[in-house]
Every structure is written in C-alpha cells, then in structure tokens.
C-alpha cells in the first residue's frame, strides 16, 4: 500500500480536520443524545446549510450565513425545547422543513454553476485549507474548554433542567450555550462533512458511547474518540477506494454505532439472569 500520500499538505489538513472536527462533534453529540434532542440538532444543521447557501447566493462568506441562520433557528427552538410544553417535535419539524425549503430556494435562485452549493451539501474534507483547520481548532478548543470549566453545570442541566434550576444553576443559560456551541460546531464542520451529513457525525459517535458507559466523563471521551476514528477510517477508505469522503465518514460512524449497540452491556440479559432461583435459595 502506497501511503506517501500522507506526506502531502492536503492530506495532513484532512487528518487534522478529522481530529479537531471529531472532537467538537463528539463532544456536542453527548449533549444532543443525553438531552434527547436529536431532532433539534438535525434542524440546526439544515439551518446552517440554508444559511451557507444564502451567503453563496448573495456573495458573502457562507460561514457567516451558516452561523447566523443556525443561531436564528436555535433562538426559535430554544424556548420550545426549554419549556417542554406542547411536543417540541412538531414545531421543530416545521422549522426543519422551512430550512430545507429555504436551502433549495437559495440554490435555485443562485446564478451559474451549483458546484459550490453541492460541495456544501456533501462536503469535502480533502480540500480543507490551513484556515479551515484553524477554525476547526478554535471551535474544538472552545467547546472542550467550556465543558471542562463548567462540567458540573452542564452535567446537572443535561440530567434534569428543572432540578438544576431548583438548586440555583442557571439552566436556561446553559441550554442556550449548548445550542450556541452546536451551531458553531456545525458551521465550521460544514465544508468537511457537508450540510446533509454533518449531523450524523454529531449523533452517531455519541449514541455509540451512550450504549457503552454509565459515566458521563467516559461518554465524552468515548464519543470524541469514536468521532475521530470515524474521520480517520473514513478518510483512509475514501482515499483507497476513491469514494466520497463525507459519505464514507458518516457510514463508518454508523457502523461504529451498530457495533456498540451489539456489544452494549445496557441491553444484554446476563447468563445468570436467565436461570430460575435455585430451590435452596428460595
């Protein structure tokens, strides 16, 4: 196998992107999974996609558009998710379809070739530049830094928002910080993984970690580890088999989730649980 390819700058950028994007996505994913709000993340990633297309259409930086629109969607979803009244899924579903509609509207209105738009849809980690890597690094550092600094506030809010509030933790603020970080992570990962696929790199590694541990700290580590691993294996396979990288990364992360679910100690009935209690112990 010829691996001299890894000496090239673009490949190094891709490998670094996988590490930094993986850490950010894996960490954010823990919140999405434990707070039971996967649909909120899906909605925000499509909002980011629509925002990026708006930027492409009107000629400003797609990243700014992506960040702005995903935060705007978070501002609408946040209060719904926080209050927990009327099933938020319905309203989030409406916003989700609106974002998808806007995305395709902007794409249709865009003059000329749509290659830039398609790249945002599929993503291409192999064309990441040094500045893309820098941006991923900054977001990953902010996400990890905040989680470490405010671990106990995040932990309490994730477990039970009303309980967190009742002991004097500003749970609403923490929820909005989580939504803000989700928006930022999605935005900077858009060019690597693509608007349609980014969400699975947030959800799948965390969902896999959720199957394997009862410790939240370990869940953060496992989730980030799985996300980085998905990036690396996906990248390698995409290079060796000459297939699209974003799609490969997402498929690898799904396979990791599948394996974690099969191996999960949380759903297995242990052998001793299958036997009736022996006569002498009744």
């Amino acid at each position, binding site marked *: 196998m010829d691996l001299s390819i890894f000496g090239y700058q673009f490949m190094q950028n891709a490998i670094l992107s996988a590490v930094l994007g993986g850490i950010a996505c894996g960490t954010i994913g823990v919140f999405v999974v434990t707070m039971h709000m996967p649909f909120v993340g899906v909605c925000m990633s499509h909002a980011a996609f629509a925002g990026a297309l708006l930027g492409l259409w009107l000629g400003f930086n797609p990243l700014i558009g992506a960040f702005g629109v995903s935060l705007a969607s978070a501002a609408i979803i946040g209060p719904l998710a926080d209050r927990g009244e009327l099933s938020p899924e319905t309203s989030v579903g409406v916003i989700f379809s609106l974002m998808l509609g806007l995305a395709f509207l902007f794409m249709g209105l865009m003059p000329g070739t749509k290659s830039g738009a398609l790249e945002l849809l599929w993503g291409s980690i192999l064309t990441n530049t040094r500045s893309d890597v820098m941006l991923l690094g900054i977001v990953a550092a902010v996400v990890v830094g905040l989680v470490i*600094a405010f671990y106990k506030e995040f932990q309490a809010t994730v477990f039970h928002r009303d*309980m967190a509030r009742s*002991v004097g933790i500003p749970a609403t603020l923490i929820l909005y910080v989580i939504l803000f970080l989700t928006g930022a992570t999605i935005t900077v990962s858009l060019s690597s993984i693509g608007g349609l696929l980014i969400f699975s790199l947030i959800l799948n590694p965390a969902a896999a970690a*959720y199957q394997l541990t009862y410790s*939240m700290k370990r869940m953060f580590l496992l989730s980030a580890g799985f996300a980085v691993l998905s990036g690396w294996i996906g990248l390698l396979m995409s290079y060796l088999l000459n297939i699209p990288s974003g799609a490969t990364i997402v498929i690898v992360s799904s396979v990791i989730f599948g394996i974690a679910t099969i191996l999960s100690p949380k759903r297995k009935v242990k052998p001793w649980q299958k036997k009736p209690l022996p006569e002498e112990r009744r």
Partner: protein
Amino acid sequence: MGSRVKTKEMNNIVINIENAVVSYREDVALRGVSLRVKSGEFVGIVGPNGAGKTTLLTIVNGLGKLVHGRVEVLGHLLTPGSGHFLRKRVGYVPQVENIDPRMPINVREVVMIGRYGLLGLLRRPGEHDWKIVDEMLELVGMSHLAQRPIGHLSGGEQQRVAIARCLAQEPELFLLDEPTASLDWRAKADILGLVRLIHNSRHLTTLFVTHDLSCLPVACDRVILVKQGLIWGEGSPAEALTDDNLSQLYDMPISAVRERRKEAILI
C-alpha cells in the same frame, strides 16, 4: 396543640405569600392566594388534582411566575433576579418522573448536584462535599446503591435519592411535591417517617404537598386545603380534615368519605 410550645418562633415568618396569581396559557392555576408560614412549621397542602398545589410550591422557590401579588422567602422579596440566589437555600423535591435507564449518571453524582448551586461556578466538589453526600445517602438508607446508575432504581429508591439530593443542599426550606405518590404502602410510611425525622433534626420549615390523606395527620402541624386555585380552608389536621370538609373539598358525598377513611386505616 404542639404549635403552642413554639411561641418564640411565631413571629418568625419565613414564607409570606400575598394575593398570588399564577396563570399558564389559558388556565389560572392560583387565583389570589395568601399564606404565611413560620419558621419550623410543618405544613401539609392538600387538595384535588389540578387545585394548584404544585404551583403553590413553585412560587416559593421562584420557578413559578407570578402575574400578580408578591412572595417573600427567608426575608427576601422573590424577583426573577433574586431567584438563583434564593433557590440555593430552598430545597425542592419534585414529583418523581421516569428517568431514562441508560442515563450516564450514578446515584452519588445525582446527590452531588444538590451542592452544585452552593459551590458556585468554576468550583469543583471537594472531599468535604463528597462526605456530605455520603452522609445524606446514609441518612436516607441508600448507601448500598451509591454507585448504581440512577435510572436503574425503583420509584421509592429514586424518591429517597431525591430527598438526599435536597438535603445535600443544606436548605432552610424543605419543599416536597407528592413524595409518596406511586409508592407502595410500606415505602410510603418509610418516606413519611424519614421526612418527619429530617424536619425535626435539622430544624427545617417544611411544605408537604400531597393528595394522599393517609399521610398527613401524623406528620403535620397545620393543613392547608387548596381547591380551584384558592385556599379553601386551614387548621390543625384534626380541625381541617373533617368528613364534612373533605366531602366539600373533593365534591364527594360524606358517606363516600367515611368509606375511604375505613379503607385508609390499613395505612
């Protein structure tokens, strides 16, 4: 009668609710409630479902939002700004909810959440905090389950953990919302005894919401009857919980109330 002994504490009012109105969407949960609670009192709040009992608790810890009236807690006027600060001194045990059995957090960590507000931002729990957590788990008899994932516990066990969490906060007020709901009769009696013990030994002021009348007489100094968002009556358990009052409170014929009493005697 027992309350007469505590004449010194009589002037010491720790909860003062004046004409509180709380509305959700199109419903009015409280329609002008005034209530004073003295330091060290154990007050039972009774009434049918939807009467506003839980809302009455949430305006004391500032989670419920007033549309009219004022609430003073521990000598401070409760405002949206003072809520965080006051909540650190008010222990709240909400109704038991289903917890995802796969939730990655164990019993000891859940109890520690009670101390997070006191600790404040950027400070980590130290040895002293873990010691308090372990003491509280011991007190509620849950030490043997300390390392178990919280979602694996039964309803009664989770209720005990919630009480331990509340106590780890070292509160001055102790608010309990239906702590005996959905428990078997042995667990009910145990939780009740535990709450009374804690109330006495830690000199707390306790508000105890329930629709389970069999719990009340042994535990309370005073009973508040709540119906349709208003305080409908109050008094000592013997004065308040008469057949006549209960029949009107629950819109039930007196004969049915008497029948219920006989059934409840088992507990």
